[in-house]
């Protein structure tokens, strides 16, 4: 709800004086309403929604190295651009690509992007409003003895920064929603990422689920004994759970290492990473998207 309210205020302030009121008002209300309706997240025990969606996406069979390289190239163009157009293109195109894989649905996509959106919008509001001694902008809000002003210059500057941030985030989220993490880590190895980092990523990915399951079990056990009955007991239970989790993860790591050694682990984690080769049409689609982004990036503001 907070994200929705912030989004409404942000779009309203950004479009104030730039768009006619009959367009600006529905746009800001529509943005807030969409985030309010679709952006609410549900709690999932022992499962990470973005991981589940990536496992189910029809696009997870595409070559992960191509997807990663394309995403990184598009993010680079988006950030390097002096205008907001590549960012806008990616913000609109990425959800279309993601939902083309059947999973995620548009609702899931909005839910996933809602959290980073909150951070981007808060940053955008800070860029948009300037503190002035007297009314000096297109939009002026009095707060006690000072004025918060939105000037046309700050609107233009904010539009560029926020479009870049949304475009880059959309790229990352679409990559994450269509590519299971083991494939991404394998692609990073193929792109010459150091072995130590890749090995750590594999282990961290595995441990996220182990610790999440352990945490869920401990929390449920505490809850079943009224451990969360009052604020005070909840604080104590949470502290106990996290200290136990530390001890449990240490024991778990030790047994895990024994199990790895028992299968001839010496140094370096090696998995058989297989992925389908990138086809020519897939390469052409990525190249076309990149070319459009570059063309938009060099357009005058």
């Amino acid at each position, binding site marked *: 709800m907070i994200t929705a309210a912030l989004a409404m205020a942000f779009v309203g302030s950004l479009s104030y004086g730039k768009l006619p009121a009959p367009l600006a008002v529905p746009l800001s209300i529509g943005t807030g309403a969409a985030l309010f309706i679709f952006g609410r997240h549900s709690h999932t025990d022992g*499962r990470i929604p973005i*991981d*589940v969606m990536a*496992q189910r996406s029809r696009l997870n069979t595409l070559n992960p190295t191509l997807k990663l390289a394309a995403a990184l190239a598009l993010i680079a163009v988006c950030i390097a651009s002096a205008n907001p157009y590549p960012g806008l293109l990616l913000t609109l195109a990425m959800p279309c690509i993601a939902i083309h894989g059947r999973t995620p649905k548009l609702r899931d996509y909005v839910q996933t992007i809602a959290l980073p959106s909150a951070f981007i919008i808060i940053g955008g509001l800070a860029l948009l409003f300037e503190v002035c001694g007297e009314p000096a902008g297109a939009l002026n809000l009095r707060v006690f003895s000072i004025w918060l002003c939105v000037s046309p210059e700050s609107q233009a500057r904010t539009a560029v920064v926020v479009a870049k941030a949304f475009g880059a985030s959309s790229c990352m989220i679409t990559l994450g929603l269509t590519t*299971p*993490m*083991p494939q991404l*880590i394998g692609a990073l190895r193929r792109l010459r990422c150091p072995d130590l980092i890749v090995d750590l990523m*594999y*282990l961290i*990915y*595995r441990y996220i*689920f*182990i610790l999440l*399951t352990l945490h869920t079990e401990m929390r449920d056990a505490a809850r079943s004994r009224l451990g969360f009955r009052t604020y005070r007991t909840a604080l104590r239970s949470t502290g106990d759970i996290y200290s136990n989790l530390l001890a449990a993860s240490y024991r*778990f790591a030790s*047994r*895990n290492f*024994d*199990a*790895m*050694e*028992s*299968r*001839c*682990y*010496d140094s370096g*984690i*090696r*998995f*058989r*990473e*297989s992925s389908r080769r990138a086809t020519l049409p897939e390469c052409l689609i990525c190249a076309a998207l990149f070319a459009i982004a570059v063309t938009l990036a060099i357009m005058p503001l």
Partner: protein
Amino acid sequence: MRPNDEVLRIENIGYRYHGAERPALNGVSVTVRRGERVAVLGSNGAGKSTFFLCCNGVLRPQSGRILLNGNAVGKTKREVYALRQAIGLVFQDPDNQIIAGTVESEIAFGPMNLKLPGDEVDSRVDSAISRLNLEQYRTSAPHYLSGGEKKRVAIADILAMEPQVILFDEPTASLDPLNVAAFERTLEELSNSGIAIVISTHDVDFAYRATDRAVVFANGAITADTSVESVFGDAAVLAAAGLRKPLLFEAAEILGLAVRPRTIEQLRRASLGES
């Protein structure tokens, strides 16, 4: 000289954990032969898990020696890796064992560590997946599988290394009856293919049903190593190890049967006087 079918011989090994008052293993000697099915019994802390870790080479015994196919296993990496490849260890909790993000890459972990060629790794992974009936989970993430499915992945992990002996640490703990039955079928197939099976368990009914020989541990030493019938017929050994008789074994005693049936069907036949 060794009999042709002897795979693993443990001779008088001892192991004491750092700072422990008494040794976890003290003068333990066991021989495992091809295709044999052995139960390792004993109470908690009797030394069963330490024994398994020593057999597999994860822990190095501080005394005694280990012979693999008649050859003493030395301290070189090559010899230790040969032992780990030949003596597979399936851990009690599959989550302790599974580290990869997909079932097929998890199963390939061991063969990749053996530095086998890619085609050979693929062929071993395919074979293990087929034997454990995991085809539909090949590209699934192991953390989304059920307990029984994870257990099958853990067994496939070891099968892909083509071991001569598989050590199972508490394999039926946390499995439902259906999965226990499926596991027993898998054991039967593995044993028939010549792989020796060594199972550490507290489930005496399962041990009586699924194995032919029992090694009993108490306080880090072996108190009995003979047929399961002899072990469960020896009240002193059972009392020292904190074990009870299997229900079918006890039922046969109460009924005064000459034979000791392993299954309900055998008990029914024996009680009806059928051969």
